[in-house]
């Protein structure tokens, strides 16, 4: 590379180099998304065609997979279960992590570093160890058999990371902003709501996107919690149940999977600009 930079190679003009890189990246992306795109196309093939036609484009496109999945396989129920768990956990985690992050980042909390250290420590415990105690806890609270319980447990996945993100962001805000509020007689709650929170918008978007992804795609936790109660299943668990004892409904499964990923792709497309700002902002401030 250094050689290319230093002596004048007429082939590698900056423009050519950019084009070359673009082509390479495009090829890489194509490989990356191919399975996804294949699955979406496959969801429009009847079961009989799925294995006879390995190409992408269906010979006889049909929506019967979708109808079957939505009506007979209960995907509609699973969809709204997932939506409930996702929206609820996003609301709770965003509010809770913003509040905790504000306190840890900006208030003189005794033992603040010990608290943060403990929180970071929990990141290293694999989910396999915590899932049984979490289930126990929910059962003791009488939430072991309800979507509310699943929603609460789902909040726990990344709330530590989100809290630290908020804390880091709030730490670097100039203290004069709060002092200006104090001079103006604006109380701490209003200061948080009207000044601090709006300024943390990039972090809020990051948290919303990451928590949505996680809650929507979560598998192990809903699997364990809904084991005894199929009506509470979420999409990821429900899709898995297309794998019957003797027969796998691949067509229904691809249709259900497509139903499952479309909302999350839409959300990401809608928020990606803020999302990337947020991640960049968390680093450079």
């Amino acid at each position, binding site marked *: 590379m250094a050689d290319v930079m230093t002596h004048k190679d007429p082939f590698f003009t900056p423009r050519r180099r950019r084009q070359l890189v673009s082509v390479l990246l495009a090829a890489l992306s194509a490989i990356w998304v191919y399975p996804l795109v294949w699955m979406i196309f496959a969801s429009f093939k009847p079961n009989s065609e799925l294995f006879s036609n390995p190409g992408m484009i269906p010979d006889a496109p049909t929506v019967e997979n979708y109808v079957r999945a939505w009506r007979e396989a209960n995907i509609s129920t699973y969809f709204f279960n997932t939506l409930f768990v996702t929206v609820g956990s996003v609301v709770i985690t965003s509010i809770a992590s913003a509040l905790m992050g504000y306190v840890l980042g900006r208030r003189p909390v005794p033992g603040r570093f010990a608290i943060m250290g403990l929180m970071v420590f929990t990141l290293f415990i694999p989910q396999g160890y915590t899932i049984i105690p979490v289930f126990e806890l929910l059962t003791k609270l009488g939430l072991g058999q309800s979507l509310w319980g699943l929603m609460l447990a789902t909040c726990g996945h990344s709330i530590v990371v989100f809290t630290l993100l908020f804390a880091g962001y709030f730490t670097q805000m*100039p203290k*004069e*902003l709060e*002092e*200006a*509020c*104090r*001079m*103006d*007689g*604006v109380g701490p709650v*209003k200061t948080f709501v*009207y*000044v601090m929170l*709006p*300024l943390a918008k990039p972090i809020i978007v990051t948290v919303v996107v990451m928590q949505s992804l996680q809650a929507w795609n979560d598998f192990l936790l809903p699997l364990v919690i809904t084991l005894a109660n199929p009506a509470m299943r979420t999409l990821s668990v429900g899709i898995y149940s297309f794998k019957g004892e003797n027969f796998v409904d691949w067509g229904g499964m691809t249709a259900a999977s497509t139903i499952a990923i479309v909302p999350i792709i839409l959300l990401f497309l809608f928020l990606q600009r803020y999302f990337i700002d947020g991640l960049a902002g968390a680093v450079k401030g």
Partner: protein
Amino acid sequence: MSSVTLKSVTKSYGQTEVIRGVDIEIEKGEFCVFVGPSGCGKSTLLRMIAGLEDITSGDVAIGGRRVNELDPAQRGTAMVFQSYALYPHMTVERNMGFGLLMNGEPKAKVKAKVDEAARILQIEQLLDRKPRQLSGGQRQRVAIGRAIVRDPAVFLFDEPLSNLDAELRVATRLELAKLHSQLDGATMIYVTHDQVEAMTLADKIVVLRGGYVEQVGAPLDLYNNPANLFVAGFIGSPRMNLIAVKDGKLPDGTALPAAAAGAGHIGLRPDALAPDAGGILSGVITVVERLGDADFVYFRTPWGQELTTRFAPGTAGGAGDAIRLGVTGKMHVFDSNGQAIPA
């Protein structure tokens, strides 16, 4: 407008005492400037008046009322921060009206107040902008506007000009002086490390060093009668020439007038010296600064000290010339503890 009184005020952070017993009396409507080198406690003192720092001991009274235990918002003060501390996500209009709105003032009334402040500061056309769309000087005005809107008894400024470039600083300094009279002589307390700002703006200057008040007085008082060596060296530009003397003699043995008997130092302002073949000071010119309206001449004395004097424009020689100067103005005399001995 209100008077502000500080009585034996101290402030400690843990074991470190930052303010060590300060008494200051600021009259109604006065423009009072706290000046001193960086780290001497000016901001701390101002923030104690504002209520942003606790008072370790002593009393702060505003308008005759002790305010030690009052919240910042209840003291009737408004502060303009060095960094302006504008709310970045709000328009100029909302920035100025935010405090009032949050305290339940009717919208129409807030709007009227904001418009009035914007008119005084000539920022009416900026009301819809966000702070990031403003220049440094405009942000400064908005920050002042936010203070005006609160209609405070006392304005507090913490180095409000230090983020502006030199030219804008001079212009804004004038604006501030005008503003003071425009606001019917509101009480203003202004912190700066720049003695020129202090001299030009103040009705009363408080010189601080290391948490103590060194001297309080009108600008010309401090200039003409500095109470000690520190104030003598701090106030005035170029600096006063301070020469250590012994037994009434200069370091090179030249005898001084009788007034200097028993002095530890004498102080001579640059414009108190003039060429004089029989003068007491001699030296070799090292640098000449020609400013057009005056020549400032830096010269080295036989005992190796660099001193300054002022010549009429175009009359100074060049570097390397020998000069001899006599005292034509006031000679300040300080005892061995650095305290001024009255003439």
